[in-house]
């Protein structure tokens, strides 16, 4: 085989000779420029994503006022009604329930790991949390369907119905178990590793001098945490919670599998919901012949992107102050 025969090989050989001719300094300079050029990619990608979704969502924004889309209650694509309100509420309800369930135990475990735990405990728990963060969303969904939904159906719903059913927030009108609470529990476990990791970093960033000063004047360890450490870290902890919520907002498959997918504005944690992510996953890619349908779905995607960018931007800026480096 003579590699010179193909034009590509000839070109490659020439290119190699050209590279060899470059001095070491020039190679360095060119590589530096190329690397610098490549680092524009993330920023370009964020902008392109935003613009592409905006362009595709534009037809529906032209056809209907944004306010009507955001507050519209009915979703009937065949009749040209694209009310996103039930889906926005679905997303907010599921996220809120998930965060309400996740935040207290996450903060407590993060503080425990940062302040009390022995190094051995930390080296055991850290990989387990990484593992929890690495489990695919679909597997969480399977867990939700197999374990959480029946638990909600057979235990939580009857219990709440018996003792707290008179409060509308806990009213049980949905006997299937698929609903906001099931979605919230699954999501809470999913965001836990994130919230714990960030809170842990933030708490660890408090200088030891503060703790020593507090302990030296006779405070207990919990008092030290309560009065010396936590006030320092509050903005960072809030940023961590915000980041966790943005994770929860965007979660798709696991939520889709357990949340019931009924396009109605929920009023109780046992009601089914239909979050924006599930709306896109269930409908995009099919039936795109209906006018404005794909445009409406991409508006939903654009909204998710916008929410995520705001949440992420704010929390990153806050976190940056704490650790001197950004936490993803």
């Amino acid at each position, binding site marked *: 085989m003579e590699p010179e025969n193909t034009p590509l090989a000839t070109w490659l050989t020439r290119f190699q000779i050209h590279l060899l001719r470059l001095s070491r300094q020039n190679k360095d300079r060119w590589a530096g420029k190329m690397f610098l050029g490549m680092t524009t990619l993330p920023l370009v990608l964020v902008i392109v994503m935003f613009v592409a979704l905006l362009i595709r969502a534009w037809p529906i924004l032209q056809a209907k006022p944004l306010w009507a889309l955001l507050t519209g209650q009915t979703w009937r694509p065949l009749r040209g009604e694209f009310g996103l309100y039930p889906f926005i509420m679905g997303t907010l309800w599921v996220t809120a329930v998930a965060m309400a369930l996740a935040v207290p135990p996450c903060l407590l475990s993060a503080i425990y790991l940062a302040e009390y735990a022995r190094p051995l405990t930390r080296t055991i728990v850290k990989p387990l949390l990484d593992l929890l963060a690495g489990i695919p969303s679909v597997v969480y969904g399977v867990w939700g369907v197999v374990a959480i939904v029946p638990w909600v159906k057979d235990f939580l719903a009857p219990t709440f119905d018996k003792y707290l059913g008179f409060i509308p927030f806990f009213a049980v009108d949905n006997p299937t178990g698929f609903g906001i609470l099931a979605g919230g529990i699954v999501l809470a476990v999913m965001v836990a590793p994130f919230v714990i990791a960030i809170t842990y970093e933030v708490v660890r960033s408090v200088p030891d001098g503060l703790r020593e000063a507090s302990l030296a004047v006779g405070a207990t360890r919990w008092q030290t945490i309560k009065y010396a450490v936590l006030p320092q870290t509050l903005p960072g902890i809030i940023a961590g919670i915000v980041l966790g919520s943005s994770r929860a907002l965007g979660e798709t*498959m696991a939520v889709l599998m357990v949340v019931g997918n009924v396009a109605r504005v929920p009023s109780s944690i046992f009601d089914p919901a239909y979050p924006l992510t599930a709306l896109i996953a269930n409908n995009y890619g099919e039936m795109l012949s209906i006018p404005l349908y794909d445009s409406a779905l991409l508006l939903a995607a654009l909204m998710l992107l916008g929410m995520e960018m705001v949440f992420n931007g704010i929390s990153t800026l806050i976190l940056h102050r704490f650790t001197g480096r950004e936490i993803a």
Partner: protein
Amino acid sequence: MKRRHIEESIFKALMIGSSGLVVGSLGLILLTVIAKGAPALNLAMFTQTPKGGYYLGKEGGILNAIVGSLYLAGGGTALALLLSLPMALYLGSYVRRRSRWASIVRLALDVLWGIPSIVYGAFGFTIMAALGIRASLLGGILVLALLELPIMTRAMDEIIRMMPSELEQAALALGATRLETTLHIVTRQTLPGLTTAILLAFGRGIGDAASVLFTAGYTDRIPTSLFQPAASLPLAVFFQLGTPFPEVQQRGYAAALVLTVLILFVSFGSRWLSARLGRYAIR
């Protein structure tokens, strides 16, 4: 016992309880998946593609999804690596510590990291439709590469920044250029961390369903070209669980177990590998 000591022990108990709860959930998830999936596992799952009537409970396996997932995640990871390694090296060792450009790039990467995978999927499908590409292995690989890019770059970036700068300075003092220092010293020193970053991104890619839902499609055959649709394990789980037949649902559980074991394997594999490669680093 004083009140504050009682408060201390109450909160300590709560903290230990919470940690137990979080770790316990992990155990519970793994137990559930094993208990549900193990009975449905058999050799045919790994060696056969779905046969006729598979989705009604007939013969067949999920080889198409296993191979498809490996293709998709493998291709996506390779592509993401090509882009993220130079970026991470640039951010980590070319620019000054307090560079404004580097913080902008990191912020953009963090924003990208947080973008929901369903948005990546919708965006990818939009672009593919504009270019006239149909749901295919290629589309799935491209979208997974975008999804993995920020994860891999940020993980590599953190690792490279943790490297002591004395080593670089020594190389530079000997007359090596920046490029030579980066390629010969930085990459070798941080090899364990870089491997972890690559496998982390691979794990994220292989487990993601929402991004490949529209872009890679689903098929019962093993793709033989980049332009054919490809099945994936997460979607195999999702679709089989969605059928009304218990036999098929059983296989969905089995597919979930296969996926989980694969993820555990990647996770432990990366720890083992990075410990092994760590022997070549100077400490």
